């Protein structure tokens, strides 16, 4: 029909790098990975580490509650108007990959309500090793696993481990107690991911999120350039 002119007057379609008014939109980073690996803890720590230098908002995709959003609120990592929870109809991977409508709406609403924003973190509801974010929703994605889930996860691979822009292996403080071999995890990750980066973190340590925060800063510098 009218394919000769653009139709983005009232909202950007999805992956457009500009807001409808032409200014550059916030960088959107997705955090995925199995339930309990430390996604919410990473989001909270990132907010604490970066909120002085950046304007941040968070979208959570809980499987059936608002607990992630409430955890972030309770711990006052951001003011409530900067946190939005999305319901996923029992299918967390659908909401971040196959039908990203509700997440895009949340992102748009946050930009409208508290923007301009520099960074929006989108936490997935926690899923299996095949769940990844659509490029229509996020610009880069972090896959968070932990040492307690078994040190063979990097070897098993799967789209999250293999293709995420950053692989985080969290809870390194627990490695001695669960018999996980960090050296083996690093070698297996390297074999699966080639040059893509891997960060080993322990969020119980002082400033334990630093490797991830530094990676986010690099992404932002590239985005704003």
């Amino acid at each position, binding site marked *: 029909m009218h394919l000769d002119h653009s139709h983005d007057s009232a909202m950007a379609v999805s992956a457009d790098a500009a807001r409808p008014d032409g200014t550059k939109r916030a960088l959107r980073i997705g955090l995925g990975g199995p339930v309990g690996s430390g996604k919410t803890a990473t989001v909270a720590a990132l907010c604490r580490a970066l909120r002085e230098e950046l304007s941040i908002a968070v979208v959570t995709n809980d499987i059936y*509650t608002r607990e992630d959003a409430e955890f972030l609120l309770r711990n006052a990592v951001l003011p409530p108007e900067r946190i939005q929870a999305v319901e996923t109809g029992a299918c967390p991977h659908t909401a971040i990959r196959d039908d990203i409508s509700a997440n895009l709406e949340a992102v748009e609403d946050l930009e409208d309500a508290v923007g301009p924003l520099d960074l929006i973190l989108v936490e997935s509801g926690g899923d299996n090793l095949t769940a990844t974010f659509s490029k229509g929703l996020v610009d880069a994605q972090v896959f968070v696993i932990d040492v307690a889930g078994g040190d063979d996860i990097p070897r098993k691979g799967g789209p999250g481990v293999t293709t995420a822009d950053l692989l985080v292996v969290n809870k390194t403080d627990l490695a001695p107690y669960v018999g996980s071999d960090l050296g083996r995890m690093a070698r297996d990750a390297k074999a699966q991911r080639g040059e893509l980066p891997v960060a080993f973190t322990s969020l119980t340590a002082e400033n334990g999120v630093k490797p991830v925060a530094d990676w986010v800063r690099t992404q932002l510098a590239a985005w704003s350039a």
Partner: protein
Amino acid sequence: MDTSTPDPAAPGAARTALLVLADGRFPAGGHAHSGGAEAAVKAGRIRDATDLAAFCRGRLHTTGLTSAALAAAAAAGVDALALDEAADARTPSPALRATARKLGRQLMRAARATWPCDALDALAAARPRGAHQPVVLGVTARAAGLGPEDAAHCVAYETVGGPATAVVRLLGLDPFEATAVLARLAPELDQVARRAAGAAHRALAEGTGTLPAASAPLLDITAEAHAAWPVRLFAS
């Protein structure tokens, strides 16, 4: 050459467009909504395929008919903003109004990406927070080269398809049984779609006041309660 709208002279014109729009995988946000089924499951009103069939039949002939007629009217070219008001008037539950507008906004995004046109742009500009979903669907159908009855079929099918999928997830209901429920409802779906299309043609001549206003009070009441649940799987 214009390649985005089907050639109406071709046999089975626009049938593929109808399949694209009616496909449950069309990315318009519906997967996170149960159409009241989550509340009905929790209350023990849906426990098996027989209950699901009864629930779907009730929904189809009430809110299904009303929504299908709104969509058909939009596809027939009745003014979308007048239809949006008519939809509000036919949706007493504030929670369901919010849901309808949310889904309308989400459908709008997918529609503008798939069948870009001025009519969708105009509606998006007039209702940036979302018009009622059936109205957006009707305008979308028109943009895709579909007619009122096609739009009515889409909405009628969605009215029962949404709860059926949700119940498969909520109860672990056998997916074959759930699909058989939908197939057995087909004659009634066709009937509702025809009635809706007839009402749309009448609205074209006589205004939106003549559109059906059937509703299901229990769905309205449970939607209000569901919206306040602290723990739920579906958004509505």
